[in-house]
């Protein structure tokens, strides 16, 4: 009988594999997904299906080109997670080809071209999202509006969603409406209070529907923390930074700035904080690094929302901080056992 000769340790934690991690993250998006479907119609679900199929096909295609075992890598669920996150971030009514473009770009150019899972410097989902946002700004910023929460008639039916996505619904405009962030950005010189009173996108139902969506993601995110799949550092730092930034500016000028609550509960704040900024591959790795990284995203999100060209800034905030992640990592090494101080930076050339 043949005995194994391998290095220690010989025992491994049962069950918690990379695929399990990915599955748990996907599962944690379910509350958000449900709420989004409930409030904005079936578009998100349809997008999800399109995104998943695209992701699997493009991943398999590239793996085949790269001569890698396809089944082995598809089973790590990383492509599916990218697809799910993108589907959640895209507006429910985007044309199908936009979803396909975004997902394929994410998987092929943002991930596989760098060497596949674990080697991508940028968050793949956000790369795909940002590319589409830059290239097709109009469909990317049109969301289903929720004028009245209770009346379900306001959300498009399944067939309407399908028709909208495949471009055969002429009346799609009747469903869409600027998101609160978009609306607030384009308040055209109105005072904040006036804007909230007059603009449809900033009316109660639309605001609260976005709040519900964000709360649902918060629930999913807390579940991830409880499962120890992510640590609290990045989301807390990001949300705190966002809250502090908005709080400071709200305190200085309440007539032109929105409240911290508005910022925390609209747009992709929670989705970004718990599901996108925490992508381990492209984020910082040490706990202190994660704090810096999260805070950086929070600040950038506020900056882009307030003074940038786009209504929401999560995608760009995350991508910009991805750039900074290696640098932050070098300066936030933990203090190792037996060392008085943590090492900082990186000395090359042997001098220490």
């Amino acid at each position, binding site marked *: *009988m043949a*005995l*194994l*000769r*391998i*290095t*220690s*340790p*010989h*025992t*491994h*934690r049962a069950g*918690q*594999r*990379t695929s*399990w*991690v990915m599955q748990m993250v996907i599962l944690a998006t379910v509350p958000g997904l449900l709420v989004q479907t409930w409030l904005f119609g079936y578009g998100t679900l349809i997008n999800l299906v399109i995104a998943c199929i695209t992701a699997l096909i493009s991943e398999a295609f590239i793996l085949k080109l790269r001569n890698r075992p396809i089944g*082995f890598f598809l089973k*790590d669920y*990383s492509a599916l997670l990218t697809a799910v996150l993108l589907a959640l971030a895209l507006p429910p009514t985007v044309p199908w080809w936009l979803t396909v473009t975004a997902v394929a770009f994410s998987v092929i150019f943002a991930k596989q071209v760098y060497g*596949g*899972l*674990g*080697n991508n410097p940028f968050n793949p989902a956000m790369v795909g999202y940002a590319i589409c946002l830059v290239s097709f700004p109009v469909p990317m910023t049109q969301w289903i509006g929720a004028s009245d929460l209770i009346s379900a008639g306001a959300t498009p039916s399944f067939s309407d969603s399908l028709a909208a996505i495949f471009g055969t619904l002429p009346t799609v405009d009747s469903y869409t409406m600027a998101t609160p962030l978009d609306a607030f950005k384009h308040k055209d010189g109105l005072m904040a209070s006036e804007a909230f009173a007059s603009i449809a996108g900033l009316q109660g139902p639309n605001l609260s529907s976005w709040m519900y969506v964000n709360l649902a993601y918060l629930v999913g995110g807390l579940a991830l923390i409880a499962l*120890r*799949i992510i*640590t609290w550092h990045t989301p807390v730092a990001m949300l705190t930074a966002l809250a502090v930034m908005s709080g400071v500016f709200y305190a200085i000028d309440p007539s032109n700035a929105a409240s911290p609550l508005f910022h925390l509960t609209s747009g992709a704040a929670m989705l970004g904080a718990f599901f996108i900024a925490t992508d*381990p*591959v492209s*984020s910082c*790795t*040490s*706990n202190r690094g994660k704090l810096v990284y999260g805070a950086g995203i929070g600040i950038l999100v506020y900056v882009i929302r307030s003074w940038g060209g786009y209504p929401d800034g999560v995608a760009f905030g995350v991508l910009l901080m991805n750039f900074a992640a290696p640098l932050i*990592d070098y300066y936030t*090494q*933990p*203090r*190792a*056992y*037996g*060392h*008085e101080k943590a*090492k900082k930076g*990186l*000395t*090359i*050339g*042997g001098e*220490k």
Partner: protein
Amino acid sequence: MQTPPVYSFHGGIHPPENKTQSLQLPLGHPSLPRELILPLGQHIGQASRPLVEVGTKVKKGEAVAMNNGFLSSFLHAPTSGTISAIETRPIAHPSGLSDLCIILTPDGADEWIELEPLANWKDISKTDVLAFLSEKGIIGMGGAGFPTQVKLQGAHKHTLSHFIINAAECEPYITADDMLIREKTLELVLGIEILQHIVEADNVVIGIEDNKPTAIAALQQLLRERQSSIQVAVVPTKYPSGGEKQLIKLLTDKEVPSGQYPADIGILCQNVGTCIAVYEAIQQGRPLISRFTTLTGDALKAPQNVEVLLGTPIDHLLAYADLQENKLSRLVMGGPMMGFTLDSGNVPVVKTTNCVLAATKKELPAPYPEQACIRCGMCEQACPASLLPQQLLWFSKSQELEKAEHYNLFDCIECGACSYVCPSSIPLVQYYRHTKAEIRDTREAAVKSDIAKQRFEARKARHEAEAAEKEAKRLARQGAAKPAAKKPAKPAPEKADTAAPAPAVDEAAKKAKVDLAIAKAKLKKLEKALLEAQEKEHTEEISALQTQVDEAKKDIVELEKLVASAPAAAPVAKTAAPALSDEAKKAKVDVALASTKLKKAEKQLAEDPDNQELKDKVAGFTADLKAAQETFDKLGGDVKTAPATAKPVLSDEAKKAKVDVALASTKLKKAQKQLAEDPDNAEIKAKVAGFEKDLKEAEARFAKLDSAPTVQAAPAAKPAMSDEYKKAKVDVALASTKLKKLQKQLAEDEQNSELQGKVVEFEKALKDAEARLAALEAPTAASTPSDSSTVVTPAVDEEALRKLKIDSAIAKAAVKKAEKALAKAIELGSEDKDSLEQQVNKAKARAEELEQALQNGGQATTKPAESSDNGADDAEFKERLKKQKVAAALAKAQVNKLKRQLDADPSSECLQQALAVAEQKQQEEEAKLEQLTNTQENR
């Protein structure tokens, strides 16, 4: 009793404990196995040196191997029996490689030697107690196997604030320490008290995990009864709380600085097993010959703890615990977190074997294939050293060694927590181990290349100095030669000669000084490396470096002596050095120096055969050489008696004997040569006889040693004729070299006259060889040193026979070689083909000619060797030899050049080649001419 505070450390994991299985049965005592395998390297540091030979009968507890340097340990027979072999066997090592082991076949009597406890350990000096512990083979029984006396010595560096007894045993499955505490509670406490006395510690804490309630209760009860000041700190169960650094952090909240030892911050850690071993050694005189080991795993029907003799094969233990062979999928020595797998069960239990885990496939499933690192950070949360395992993996994969070091790779304790939690099943620890080894290798290579560079530069400097000196000498001689041309060539060379030996001595002194400087530099470097290694806690490195440092120091002492003695001329400095080997080395150096000088003088004599003073000098040097050889001889005698008194190390003895044989044969050779030069000298004859006897003795001794099957790789025992055989071989080699040269010259220059001259020379050389052979025969044939004619005559027949054989062999070899050259030439399409063919034919013809001539010659009576002619002949021969050497060197250089050209441009025209050959020829002729004129001048 107060409970000491317990702190916490970063990270850690909670793998399933699996400790209950092996605690169901009481302590087992397996039977004696068929044989016990005792590896010589059971600990960190240098392997032990065996003290026994094959066939030695030993009693239980008798030392079978002793320490070899500072970081090493003793080894004892675990039972009485016979040493059946000392050979390489598979050892308990992750590599599955074999190493040298002493194999003991038990006689079943289990008879102890008389045990001598150290009753007065409280009164004698602590160094003596430590030495006693070292002699009892005590090493750290927790993990790495650090020799205990070394660790305790280190504890004296600072006053100890804490003395920690490590009973945490955090690895899953293992319960050996648990069982040990339960079984030997009192011994443990007494052992701790002894250690407490040795290291003068007040604050003693036993760190134990809370999953051993029985052991904790037993300990606490006993400590209460004894009103001991020893405290028991119960730490929460978390892997790796039993790691030394982690336990220190848990119990003292201090961290051992990176690259340092706990002793540096006033803390000492000892394993419970070590404490008990110390107690048994001091109070009972028992050496470390057995230990507690856990046999566990689902493949065993009766998992349990056993007290097992060291050296017991694992198979034996597995059989004792009812192994179900078909269920076994992985055999692990040690725990599942840090243990290593064994290829088979034929490896022995060693001093650090705390567990043997026979796991089924279900229990320890094969790891999943490695997936990509997603930098999830789970490893970072688990790392007890607060490292960033994911970053280290990245650097390890890309072999960025500097970055890996910068990220504190060497603070990794290889506990395996990161691999355990890794969701991508990355064998992180293996990556780190590999990278650590890479870094160490790179460092070693750097050190080695530095040394090589130094040596190269020293050599270059020496050569330059020598060349300058030669030049100066040549100028001096030229200056002297002018007046010598007018006068009858006597006083001038004298001047030159008196000048010559002085520089020779100077030279030797200079060389010694250079060597000394190099050695000192090396020592400094080594010490620096040692310091660094100590800082970085590379124990293996430390031991190696330590020995190197010791060696270097020894070298320096020796060299210093040499430097001191050199100006006072060679044969002085025969002061008895303390170390045997040193003395021998020195004597060897003396011999070498004396012989060099003798050679020089002889050369000068050859140049100037009439110079009486030179002759005297030669005689003086011969005497010196003789004296040096005598010291050597004496030392040989010492060596002969040494094994009985000093170190009965088997292989060493064999080596020594071999050296003796070599020395004796060299001496014999030398004496024989002298005899050949001066056959009338009765003294030399006597010496030859004496050397002959020595040689035979040495050979006999060597043969005896060699016949013992344990000595490895020793060459087959030499027959009594070996020296003659060697000599014949030497002659053949010399003759064939000459023949080679001849052929080369023949190929280049087909002028017959020269060739004939060469042939004559060649024959002369052969004659010389013959004469030497005859001389060789003479003392053996006629042991009575009567007159020279009787010595020579009986040898004549044999001489002729031998000559015939040698010549025919040489000629045949020449033919073969020429044929080979021809084949090569044909292959290369060279134009030399024809000349080479001619050469082959010539060589063949010559071979036949020679054979015939020699056959005739064998029948014809050879004229008796004339002693007076011999000296002159010799001188002449030497000159010609020299000439030939130079010619050959030139020829060789040119051949090399040709080859290179050919390599560089294989398609090149043969014209160039021919040109090169012509050039070569010309140069050679010039060289020869020059030499000829030189010899004429000298005459």
